[in-house]
C-alpha cells in the first residue's frame, strides 16, 4: 500500500489528469442520461472515432495543430508572468500576413511557403511587441492592450480582405488548388483528411520552447523574471527587455499558428464576424498543460479530441451540440479544478491522522 501510494504520488501529474478526465466523463454521463441520451454510444463516438479511424485521426491532429501553437504562445508568456490574451489577434495577423505573402509576392512555390510561414510568425511577434513594449515602458497592463490589439487585428483583417484581397467578396480566392502545406502522401495515410505539415511546425515549436526555456540564458532570464521580477532586477537582469521579448516570442508562436492554419487547412481567408476562438482555447490549453511544453501537447490533444470528437458525438450518437458542449466543459472543468488532487490528498491525510485519540 505504501509503495502504491508513493508511486501514485510520483506520477501524480498524469494520474490526477486521468482521474480528472474520468470524473468529468462521469458527470457528463449523468447529464446525458438526464437529457435522455446514451452516454456509452456518445463516448464511443467521442473517443473511439476521433482516434481510431484514419480520416478522423487525421482531422483530430489537424484540430490539435493550432491549439499546440496557441497553447505554447500563452504558456511562454505565463512563464514570464504575463497574461497574453492577445493570442487571438496575433493568430489573425499571422494568418493574414502568411496569406498575403503566399498570394501577392509571386515567389517560387517552396520558397513562398517557407517565407509565408516565417513572415506569419514575425507578424505575430510584432503584434505581441506592442503590448509588451507598452507594459515595459509605460506599465500599461498587457491584458488591456492585447485585447484591443485583438480587435484591431480582426477588423484590419476584415478590411483588407474586403477591399483588397477578396475584391468585395466575402472570402478570398484560394491560394492554390490545394493548401500549400498540405502534402498528398500524408493526407492519404490519414484517409484523405486535411492533416498538414503544420503539425510538424507545432512539434518543432514545442521543442523550441523547451530548449529556449531550459537550455538558454534567455530562458533562464525569462523564467527568473516570471517567478520573481524583484529578484531578477537584483540579479541585474533587465525585466523590461524580458517582458518585451517574452511577448514577442509568444506572439510569434501565435502567428505561426495562424500561418499554419491558412497555409495548411483552409487556404483562404474570409471576413469573420467574430474571433475564431483558437487563441482563447490556447489560454485553457496552457493552463491545463501547466505551462510546460509537454503539458501543452497533452492539453492540446485533449482539447482537439474533445473539439473534433464532439462533432462525432453529434453525428453518431445524436447528442445535440449544446449537450456536447456541457459534457466537454465538465471534463475540462474537472481537469482544471484538479479535484482529484484533493481527493487523493484527503485520502492521505486520513491515513495520517487515524491514530487520533
Amino acid at each position, binding site marked *: 500500500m505504501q509503495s502504491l501510494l508513493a508511486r501514485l504520488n510520483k506520477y501524480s501529474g498524469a494520474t490526477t489528469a486521468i482521474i480528472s478526465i474520468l470524473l468529468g466523463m462521469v458527470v457528463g454521463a449523468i447529464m446525458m442520461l438526464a*437529457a435522455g441520451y446514451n452516454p456509452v454510444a456518445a463516448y464511443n463516438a467521442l473517443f473511439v472515432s476521433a482516434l481510431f479511424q484514419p480520416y478522423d485521426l487525421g482531422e483530430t491532429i489537424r484540430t490539435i495543430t493550432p491549439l499546440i501553437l496557441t497553447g505554447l504562445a500563452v504558456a511562454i508568456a505565463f512563464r514570464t508572468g504575463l497574461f497574453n490574451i492577445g493570442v487571438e489577434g496575433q493568430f489573425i495577423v499571422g494568418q493574414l500576413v502568411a496569406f498575403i505573402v503566399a498570394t501577392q509576392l509571386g515567389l517560387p512555390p517552396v520558397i513562398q511557403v517557407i517565407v509565408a510561414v516565417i513572415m506569419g510568425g514575425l507578424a505575430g511577434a510584432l503584434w505581441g511587441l506592442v503590448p509588451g513594449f507598452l507594459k515595459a515602458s509605460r506599465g500599461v497592463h498587457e491584458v488591456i492592450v492585447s485585447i484591443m490589439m485583438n480587435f484591431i487585428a480582426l477588423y484590419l483583417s476584415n478590411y483588407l480582405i474586403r477591399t483588397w484581397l477578396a475584391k468585395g467578396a*466575402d472570402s478570398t480566392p484560394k491560394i492554390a488548388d490545394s493548401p500549400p502545406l498540405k502534402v498528398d502522401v500524408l493526407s492519404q495515410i490519414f484517409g484523405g483528411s486535411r492533416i498538414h505539415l503544420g503539425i510538424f511546425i507545432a512539434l518543432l515549436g514545442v521543442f523550441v520552447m523547451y530548449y529556449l526555456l531550459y537550455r538558454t540564458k534567455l530562458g533562464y532570464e525569462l523564467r527568473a523574471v516570471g517567478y520573481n521580477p524583484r529578484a531578477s532586477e537584483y540579479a541585474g537582469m533587465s525585466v523590461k527587455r524580458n517582458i518585451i521579448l517574452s511577448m514577442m516570442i509568444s506572439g510569434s508562436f501565435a502567428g505561426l499558428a495562424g500561418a499554419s492554419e491558412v497555409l495548411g487547412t483552409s487556404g483562404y481567408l474570409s471576413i*469573420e464576424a467574430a474571433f475564431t476562438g483558437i487563441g482563447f482555447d490556447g489560454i*485553457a490549453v496552457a493552463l491545463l498543460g501547466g505551462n510546460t511544453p509537454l503539458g501543452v501537447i497533452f492539453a492540446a490533444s485533449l482539447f482537439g479530441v474533445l473539439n473534433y470528437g464532439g*462533432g462525432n458525438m453529434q*453525428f453518431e450518437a445524436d447528442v445535440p451540440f449544446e449537450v456536447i458542449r456541457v459534457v466537454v466543459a465538465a471534463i475540462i472543468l474537472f481537469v482544471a*479544478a484538479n479535484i482529484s488532487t484533493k481527493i487523493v490528498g484527503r485520502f492521505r491525510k486520513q491515513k495520517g491522522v487515524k491514530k487520533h485519540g
Partner: protein
Amino acid sequence: MKKRTWLAMILAAMLILAVGCGQGNDQAANESGFKVGMVTDTGGLNDESFNQTTWDGLERAKDELGADIKALESKQDSDYVPNLTKFAREGRNLTWAVGFKHEKAVPEVAQQFPDVQFGIVDSNLGGNIPANVTAVTFKEEEGSFLVGAAAGLTTKTNKVGFIGGINSELIEKFEAGFIAGVKAVNPKAEVISAYAGSFSDVTKGRTLSAGMYNQGADIIYHAAGGVGKGLFDEVKTREAGKFWAIGVDMDQSRLAPEHTLTSMVKKVDVAVFDITKSLKDKDLKSGEHHVFGLQDDAVGLAENTKNINPDVLTKVNEYKEKIISGDIVVPTKVADVK
C-alpha cells in the same frame, strides 16, 4: 499554483455559461431510405435565420417525403469540411450546406464524393458549380424592395434607416433593394445606412439603432443576424405607432409585437424543400444555380401584416406585381440605385 487553478476554473465556468439553451433535433427513424443531411454554419441551428429555416424545410421533407433527416452544427469554419464529409461517407442522398461560408468547403468535398448530391444555400459558388452540387440563392433585393416601399410609404419623418451585418455582396443586396424601394415610393425620403461589422453584437445593434432614431429616422430595417436583436430592444423603449423596426429572414414580430412594421422573410424552407423534393422525384438537374425570388414566393413580406396600413399594403402589392412581371428590375448594388 492557486492563482492558476483559479483562472482555469473561471475559464471552465465561462465555457459552461457560453453553452446556450437549445433543443435536440428530432430523430426520424425513417426507413424510406431517402436520407438528407444538413450542416449549419457557425451560427448554429437556432439562429433565427437561414439555418433554422433550412431545418424547417427538412422537417417538411420528413413529414411529406418520409426523409430521414439529420443536422450537424459547426463550431468553427474549419468544421465545414469534416462535417460535410461525414454525411457524404455515410451515403446521404443529399447534404445541405447552409450559408455562403461553405462556398470553399462544398466544392472540395463534392469533388471527393462525386456520387453524392450537395446543396448550398446563399452562394452560387462564383459560377463554378460542380455537377453534383445545387446552388440556391435568393433575390433578397426584391423582398427588400417591398419592405422599402412599405417603409417609404409609412415614414412620417422622411428618414429611414438600414443596419447591415458585415459589409459584403450578399448584405448589399438587402441594402440596395431597400433603398430602391424607399425611393420608388417616396423620392424625398432619406435612407441612412450603417454596418455593424458583426452578425452577433447585440449591443452594437442597439447603439446604432438608437443613433438612427435620434437622428430622426422612424423606421429601421436590419439585415444583420443577431445584431438585429439590439434594434428590437431599442425600438421597444420608444413610442409605439411612431417608431418601427423591420425584421429579416423570418417573421420577427414576436421580438416587439407593437413595433414591428413587417419582416422581409426569406423562405429558405420553401427552396430547400422544393429542391429536396425534386431530387426525390428524380427530376433534379444538379450542377445548376437556382435563384428564388418573388415569383417563387420565396421572398417577401411576412404574412402577419397587422401593423401595416391597408392602403400601404395595397400599394406594396402593386409593386410586387410589377417586379414579378419584370416591369421593375431591382438593383443589387447600392451604386446602381437611381
